[in-house]
């Protein structure tokens, strides 16, 4: 099998893996012979017809796997496929060829587990060692940690990469065991996350540790994802959790199951953003899901929370804190900052036009704010 055919098979195997390059890469060594200084922010090179940017070369080392993940096309239960693997030199050379031609900005390397996890990790290490030491590449590399890898390998991978990730796949142990029988949730996944946390020091993997979960493959609720996010961020020091709405893959054991609407994935990301960018507490976020423990797919999570906590509103736009402003639907971190700046400068906001200039979404925000003591009346007031 030639390199082109391998690229087609092993590149296609990673299309459901979500990763974005980060500007938080390690500092380059001050040496003119090294390629790929990751300091300067680049531009995304290309966009696929689904609107996602192709800025990293995303490939698997091999697609031969011993695990039986029901949603995966490479699992032992899936329809047999042509199995192949990249030789470390071949993959390293291919990556450098693409990189020097400015097609990509970095490498995302994952693998199926052929033999055992350590075997897969050794192959990955070999490839990265060639790229870093033989080709003097200093740029962005994101590596996937295999479930069940040993501490020594994890340490080496963390030292050599800019970001590492391990796929959690499911928020709870029960749903995980429904999907996969060959992996142990606590031992193979959570313990490895703990190992990564120990191995990671300030200078290593500056892009942090990320994880990915499949949404709704085993009937998980949104509240379970939110609870898991809280544990990941607070206890395991995970930088970011990615979600991927379950999409049945042809030939996999779950190919007859119905897919999950993308809006659900989108709304989970929105709740994640409320925590990471808006500074919301997880205790607040947990109030958003309804009785069935799922987020409503018709109301934005921030608006849903605002409707559930009417005592917080209306917020006086000229005398409120940044935290209070961030809770108002239609006000984001940048516009909240601008309002606070106006407060510092003793400039009072007198009308809606000024708010619009700041960049607030008036339609969403007006029912929850007061300008000069006046707020928009609600329908309930007339009943």
């Amino acid at each position, binding site marked *: 099998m030639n390199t082109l055919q391998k690229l087609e098979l092993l590149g296609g195997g990673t299309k459901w893996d979500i990763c974005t390059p980060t500007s938080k890469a390690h500092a380059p060594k001050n040496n003119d012979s090294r390629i790929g200084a990751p*300091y300067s922010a680049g531009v*995304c090179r290309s966009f696929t017809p689904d609107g996602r940017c*192709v800025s990293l070369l995303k490939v698997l080392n091999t697609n031969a796997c011993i695990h039986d993940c029901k949603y995966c096309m490479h699992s032992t239960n899936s329809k047999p496929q042509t199995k192949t693997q990249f030789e470390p030199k*071949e993959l*390293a050379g291919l990556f450098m*060829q693409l990189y020097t031609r400015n097609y990509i900005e970095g490498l995302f390397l994952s693998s199926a587990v052929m033999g055992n996890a350590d075997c897969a990790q050794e192959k990955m290490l070999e490839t990265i060692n060639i790229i870093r030491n033989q080709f003097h590449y200093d740029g962005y590399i994101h590596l996937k940690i295999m479930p069940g890898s040993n501490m020594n390998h994890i340490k080496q991978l963390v030292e050599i990469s800019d970001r590492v990730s391990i796929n959690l796949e499911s928020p709870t142990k029960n749903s995980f065991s429904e999907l996969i029988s060959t992996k142990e949730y606590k031992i193979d996944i959570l313990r490895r996350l703990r190992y990564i946390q120990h191995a990671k020091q300030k200078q290593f993997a500056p892009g942090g540790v990320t994880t990915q979960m499949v949404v709704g493959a085993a009937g998980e609720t949104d509240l379970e994802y939110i609870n898991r996010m809280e544990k990941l961020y607070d206890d395991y020091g995970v930088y970011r959790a990615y979600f991927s709405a379950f999409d049945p893959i042809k030939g996999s054991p779950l190919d007859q199951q119905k897919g999950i609407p993308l809006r659900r994935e989108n709304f989970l990301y929105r709740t994640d953003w409320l925590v990471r960018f808006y500074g919301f507490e997880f205790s607040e976020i947990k109030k958003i899901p309804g009785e069935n423990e799922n987020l409503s797919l018709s109301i934005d999570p921030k608006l849903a929370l605002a409707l559930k906590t009417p005592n917080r509103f209306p917020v006086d736009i000229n005398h409120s804190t940044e935290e209070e402003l961030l809770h108002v639907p239609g006000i984001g971190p940048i516009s909240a900052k601008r309002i606070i700046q106006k407060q510092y400068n003793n400039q009072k906001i007198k009308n809606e036009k000024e708010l619009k200039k700041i960049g607030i979404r008036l339609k969403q925000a007006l029912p929850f704010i007061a300008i000069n003591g006046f707020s928009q009346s609600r329908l309930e007031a007339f009943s």
Partner: protein
Amino acid sequence: MRNRLRTIERKGDSSLFFASHQLKAFTRFESFPEMLLFGKIASHASFIMNALNFFCYRFPPFVIALYNTPNNRLFVQSKRKDFCYRTIKDFDSSEKALEWLRPLVQKSIKKRLHFGVDWKPEYFERFFETQFIENRKNLRLQKKLMFTNLLDKDSVEFKSLKKFSRTLSNTQLGDFFFSKTPVHTQQQAIQTKKGFLPKNAE
């Protein structure tokens, strides 16, 4: 208590956070064994100088040459110590610019870097095609982020825009009258010379 306001401040400040996902300028290099990276670009001179600095910083062992197609001007720069050459020169075509530059670089740089894999343009094309998930098709987003005027018309991205936008059939007058019938039945109906009525409505 969780206090993430500092992070918010940092991220809110960063204009690059939004800009990095937008394609502001576009060039792809042709790599030559003489450690020369040659790319075509269509932009303003001031921007090209910045781009040159950026690429020299990113590829220090290479000589970077950007050929600005609107005014046929070649910009050359390198961070190498044995090729301290920084120039701007006008040419008739990119081929002539290469003819002039390649021997010059060949003379100066003796040490080469081999990656062990021969280059084929199909590598990226095939990889690009594998990354697309059909259920998530969002051409509007692709068009918004990817400026078509900066793209080479033979590139795989440009072709993909054309290819997938063609699959969306235009709404025809018949669609409003027979909305419940499938589109292909309506098209058949239009083809028959019996007006806009589908076959089964007779």
